[in-house]
């Protein structure tokens, strides 16, 4: 019977996880089949103002989470949060200083492997996990962005934190309405099988005429057709389970910044809740996007985040801390949402930036917030060189991915997992 088969498969996967990770033991003991692990990654650009997020000396190892000026908005969810600091990445010379911060934040490429021109892009952590956990979901992964500037003035290295492979970025969805329609709307029926067959046949005809490099490029199309085929089948199954959309259809992009961010988070939380996807990324804003934007209720005028990071003087620093705190408040909101929907225990919610100090473009000493998922609570600080990839490897293992190494990882972070 198919139902029991599925449960068995889930159980086996979860059991594989329990071997290395104590968190799942408690779930394995529960009578119901353990819920699938879920992951959401939120990216904020241009680093954090260091003096407000981590003032003073921090000793290595565990300590209680101090609610510094930047972290103060996390007060209500302090017990659910792990704050990790001191992890490192390596900037690879050859591209702009900001370009790798976001595009390679979740990458699995070691710094010496620049497989994509000068960029060490490769399959990102969310996609590695999606391949493991998302195979039976309507959408293996969800890529969102709240950069609503229409001018697309920067390259994809600024617009995408999720990459299918070296030099192959996932397209992001910026309009909440389109996300909703993809998840719950009529569009989930998608094109008919006969239409998919037709374009596939046509693509094969085209393929015959192409040279090697172009054939590889067309592979993106062929792969997309197959993925769409699978999504439709699973969406139909999901539609039988969930008859009605769990939320009203959004009208479009909300005018206020906070509303926009919260709506996008709501969408992936609902997607998790209905098991339409298990992995989501949300790019709050791209790196180095020199366009002033409104942070409603924080400033009464538009602010240029990137320029402020390079502006001296107390006024700028104060602004920077406020923007960081604004994003922390958003993070706290998402944690509360996950808690309210009882998803927090099975979800790992991550927020961070690809650089620590925005002014000096420091790819080392990174801060990462982790909530849910059964991580040890508090503040854990790493001294010396410890690759960020170790954290990603730890998460990949949690998701059941059997990986020895991830990018330049040296081992899992057993002390916090």
């Amino acid at each position, binding site marked *: 019977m198919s139902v029991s088969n599925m449960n068995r498969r889930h159980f086996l996967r979860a059991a594989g996880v329990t071997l290395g990770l104590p968190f799942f033991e408690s779930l394995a003991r529960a009578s119901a089949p353990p819920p699938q692990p879920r992951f959401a990654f939120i990216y904020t650009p241009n680093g954090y103002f260091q003096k407000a997020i981590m003032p003073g000396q921090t000793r290595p190892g565990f300590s209680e989470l101090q609610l510094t000026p930047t972290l103060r908005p996390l007060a209500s969810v302090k017990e659910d949060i792990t704050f990790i600091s001191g992890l490192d990445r390596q900037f690879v010379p050859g591209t*702009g200083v900001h370009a790798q911060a976001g595009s390679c934040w979740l990458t699995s490429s070691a710094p010496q492997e620049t497989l994509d021109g000068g960029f060490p892009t490769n399959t990102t952590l969310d996609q590695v996990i999606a391949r493991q956990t998302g195979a039976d979901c309507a959408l293996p992964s969800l890529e969102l962005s709240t950069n609503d500037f229409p001018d697309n003035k920067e390259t994809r290295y600024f617009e995408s934190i999720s990459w299918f492979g070296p030099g192959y970025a996932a397209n992001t969805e910026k309009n909440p309405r389109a996300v909703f329609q993809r998840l719950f709307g009529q569009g989930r029926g998608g094109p008919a099988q006969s239409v998919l067959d037709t374009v596939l046949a046509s693509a094969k005809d085209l393929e015959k005429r192409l040279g090697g*490099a172009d054939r590889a490029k067309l592979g993106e199309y062929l792969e997309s057709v197959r993925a769409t085929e699978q999504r439709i089948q699973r969406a139909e199954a999901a539609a039988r389970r969930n008859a009605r959309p769990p939320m009203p259809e959004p009208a479009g992009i909300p005018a206020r910044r906070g509303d926009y961010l919260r709506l996008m988070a709501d969408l992936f939380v609902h997607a998790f809740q209905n098991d339409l996807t298990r992995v989501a990324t949300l790019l709050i804003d791209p790196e180095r996007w020199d366009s002033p934007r409104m942070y409603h209720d924080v400033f009464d005028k538009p602010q240029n985040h990137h320029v402020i990071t390079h502006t001296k003087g107390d006024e700028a620093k104060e602004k920077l801390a406020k923007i960081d705190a604004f994003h922390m408040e958003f993070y706290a909101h998402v944690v509360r949402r996950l808690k309210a929907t009882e998803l927090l225990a099975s979800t790992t919610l991550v927020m961070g930036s690809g650089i620590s100090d925005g002014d000096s473009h420091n790819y080392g000493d990174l801060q990462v917030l982790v909530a849910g998922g059964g991580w040890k609570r508090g503040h854990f600080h790493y001294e010396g060189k410890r690759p960020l990839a170790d954290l990603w490897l730890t998460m990949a293992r949690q998701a059941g991915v059997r990986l020895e190494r991830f990018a330049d990882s040296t081992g899992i972070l057993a002390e916090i997992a």
Partner: protein
Amino acid sequence: MKALSLLVLLFSTTARAADVGAFLNTYCLECHDTEVKKGGLDLSMGVTEAKGPLDRDVWRLVFEKVESHQMPPPKQKDQPDAAQRAELLAWIMDTAARPDPALGGADPGQPALRRLTRLEYNNAIRDLFALDVDVFMFPERLPISDKSYFQPAGGNMPATVKVPLREYGQKYPVLCRQLGLPGDHRAEHGYRNRGDAMDFSPLLLEKYFAAAEEIVNAPELVARSEVAARLFGMAAPPRQAGPVPWAAATAPAGAVMARDAPQWRKAEGVADNHAQRFFDDLREAFTGGVGGVFDAGDDSGAVNKVPGKGGVVRVAYAGGTKALTINPNVDLWLAGFSTVTPASRPRIFTNQIKGEKAYELTFGIENGEEDEGVMRLGVFVLGRKGQSGPVTLTAKFTDDTESSVNSMIEEGAAGTTFFSFAAVPGENVKSLRVDGSQFSGDYVVLDDLGFITSGQPKPVATLKPAPAPTPGPEVASGRVGEPAAKRLAAFLERAFRRPVPEAEAAPFIALYEGGRVRGKTEAEAMKAAVAAALAAPAFLYVEANGKPGGAKISPLEDHELATRLSSLLWASIPDEELLLLAKDNKLHDHEVLEAQVRRMLKDPRSRELGESFAVQWLRLDQLSTAKPDPDLFKAFYAGPQGKSTLHGSMLIEALLLFETVLVEDRSILDFIAADYTWLNGGLAGLYGIPLKGEASEVVAGVGSNPTREVKKKSESGLWQRVRLTDPNRGGFTGMAAPMVITSLPFRTSPVKRGAWILETLFNRPPTEPKVAFAFEDDSKDAALGMSIRERFEAHRNKAACYSCHIRLDPPGFALERFDPLGRWNENADASGEWAGQPFDGPAGFKALLAANPHEFTRGFIEHLLSYALGRELRIYDMPVVEKIRRAAQADGWKFSRVLVEIAKSYPFTHVRQ
């Protein structure tokens, strides 16, 4: 190590190469040998032409660094002399031009397979169905609500043009209002049409599917597109004039008037013989070219929407040399109503939205005489079955006085009432307000709008008629009556831009037939097949494979060439003529190619060269997000809460220069040193340049209120071509747009300006700084009393920064005399040195550029060639660029010559397999 490499040089190459080897040995190898390898560059591999493409890229880097005097390091004492430098550059150029030994010929390059950009996708579908509107709304479409000023066929831009702008984000008429597609990312230092910068993922595929579905099922598609109607096997729709219709004014129909006379009443307060007198005068005005009746004489029953605010109906009169424009403030229908009893023919105006019975029409004259306006106006309000009530018409005059006529419209045809207005001498009718809020029907219907202008009557026969405003729709697919499969196959050829073998059409025909078998109507089944074709890779991807046969280098197939041409010049698909030439295998002929380029440039679709290429080239797309500090730069903002800004005006000024050079086939040197520019009231005020007629009228103030006169002249949509006396202005570097793009909200940024010039004008973008740098205390307060210049000098003197900044800073400093809005700032220090010559201010810098236009012309041609090819340029393109450059120079730098030579060039017509 050095000795060895020199040995290699001596034995592997000619005596000239030995000189090159000596150059490297003396000036380069101390840092760039295998041991030190500074910047990752090792030049000790020797000078040989026999190396592969990798080495060629190294040589390109050497060329650029040595040419621009960035290397050897400027602070190094021992420098090569000019002759030595030139010799090295000539040798590299010569090497680049040689055949690639691995290919057995010169390398034409191989662009990555690319899909249509969002703009091209829109245009391709628009042209496939011969639509007169965009398919959907997208931000790359410039917010110009009426582009009819762009008429390349005439080869001249008029002295004044009207460029009405939509407010940013305002809706405009498109086929599918809800449809959207994700935008494309630009390539690093390149354009959005680069395959290597594009991705394709399930998300995007599903968007293409959904879009195709929505397009073929759009309710308006069949009504707007004869092609679609035929293809779907539906009755051909009535002929369409489009949403911005052109209509010719007609003579007042005397016979009709007489016959209908008993049926219509005059409005109260109108003298008994007033109507007849108006019609007599109107008839005379028509023959004198100063009036006519808008009735369009179209009995087709076509329904056109005229959108509120942005929409304009043009009524041509005076033999088609002038036009009355009618601009409604709400959406109107131009329609035939079955319940209407027309006064003459069934072309009428009415509110489109049910119950929106108060609306206003604003009038204008295009190509009229100075101050020509509507002097007298007459119009019928139609009586309708079962509807009655009072209707008030109010004419507003140019002296801001008004005149209202109220009349009771009775039920049925007898209720049809004639209203007329006349301005006092010297004034004109500005607008007509219609108020039918008390009328019992949902629509207030107007017919037979007659107008007499204040122009000088001239016999129309002596006037030269204007060219037809829009090209007729092309018939893209088979005729109705042909079997569906045949119509579909014809459509596929057009959509895929090439012959489609039967086997390839088969899946689409099978999809159609499958639909029929399952009980779909012919139209439904056809729509499904067409939608599949619009999401198929053969439509979405641009093929450039060359002729099959396995050769390493191959000429493009003619139909591939056709698509390259149409992508370059129209950002769209080839038209019938191009496809026919390709089919006959004639297109690759250089004469044919040249003729086609010239033909295509005369087509209004060539506007896309400006909207797509120029906007990206100049980075004008970044204007919309530039936000000068509202406290410091009040001049940028106007209206309530600073809602109106100068963004749009600045964009249009730059676009108009590009379009002028394009339409008038002028020298591309105009881009850096034109002695004219286009100004509207807003920019004229910003620059402090008076517009024509403005000053004299203000002084004279002849019998009217001078301020009102100025206001009228300064209307933001009206642009005057202005001859410049100040050499600091003129060309893109003398315009506000680049200055705003390259400024921070509260101060200028010489670095950004320098980088903009290096990248845009010279196509030599500076490398990004590897270290972060910021000024101490770089805040708004500091900006107020700033001396940016001094702070920069300190910075560039650091050794790590010097070799870039010596090139980056001077152009930036030259433009320092323009403030963050592009206003003149006399006090800024704008002196510097460029190519060994001192300059002061923008004019001085421009003079140096113009004296030696090599850097700019090369940069421009490289930009355009890269856009044309959809790939990054490589060293083997250098000789090609030089060839195009020389040909253009010999032809007075004409823009069309550049485009023709690009179209004929080796990499445009060939591909590496």
